[in-house]
């Protein structure tokens, strides 16, 4: 892409700084080795930060995944236990209801 003119908007403070250091800044356009070093440093800084962010996110996700796996195991065990209890209680309540019925017949006979 060919540019004839580039316009850049900066803050008032930055503008003041650029105006004051114009001569020094002009030289920077020719110091390509220093520019390359700077770009390399900035890119390394960015990549290091990005790597650290990813590591942190992966650690968190692995931890959450582990928690969820443990929860799944617990919920499966609980389900088995609850099904057993439901069966036991249903059976016991049925028997108690039968017993109550027998008792009420006996009481009726007595009266």
């Amino acid at each position, binding site marked *: 892409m060919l*540019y*004839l*003119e*580039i*316009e*850049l*908007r*900066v*803050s*008032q403070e*930055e*503008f003041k700084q*650029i*105006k004051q250091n*114009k001569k020094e*800044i002009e030289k*920077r*356009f*020719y*110091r*390509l080795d*220093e*520019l*390359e*070093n*700077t*770009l*390399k*440093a*900035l*890119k*390394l800084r960015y*990549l290091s930060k990005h*790597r650290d962010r*990813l590591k942190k*996110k*992966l650690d968190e*996700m*692995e931890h*959450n*995944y582990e928690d*969820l796996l443990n*929860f*799944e195991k617990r*919920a*499966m065990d*609980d*389900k088995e*236990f*609850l*099904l057993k*209890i*439901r069966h036991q*209680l*249903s059976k*016991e*309540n049925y028997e*108690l209801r039968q017993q*109550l019925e027998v*008792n009420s017949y006996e009481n009726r006979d007595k009266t």
Partner: protein
Amino acid sequence: MKIVIKPEVGWKKVVFKIPDNQFGKIKKLGGKYGFRIDKLLRIILIGGFIDYQDNSNFQDLEREIESLERKLYELEGKWSPLKFRTYYLAMDDQNLAIQISGLIAENKRLRKILGKPERDYSKIEELIHYYMGFDSRE
């Protein structure tokens, strides 16, 4: 190449005139390290240069990042089905807890009428309480 710098507010400007071939070299450097022109210019104009001497290359870092990203994608792929499974499992347990809660109330009443001692429901009630309070957002 003419680079015109203007403040956010106001009509003042500072102009830099850079030979096209020199600007081309700068642009090429920006491309090599993945910097856009505006970012590149801001580094030259405002940021200044960093005195940096380090021989470490970023290909190792990029490879490490790629590997981390791959692990993240893999984990994200496993995460959704697991979350879906555990949600419905917890919902099953919640339904069972509601049913058992009713059965316990009936059992207590029947035992009382028949003069039988009350059973110890503490462990089951603890579980019922846990699943009744289960929030799908957790």
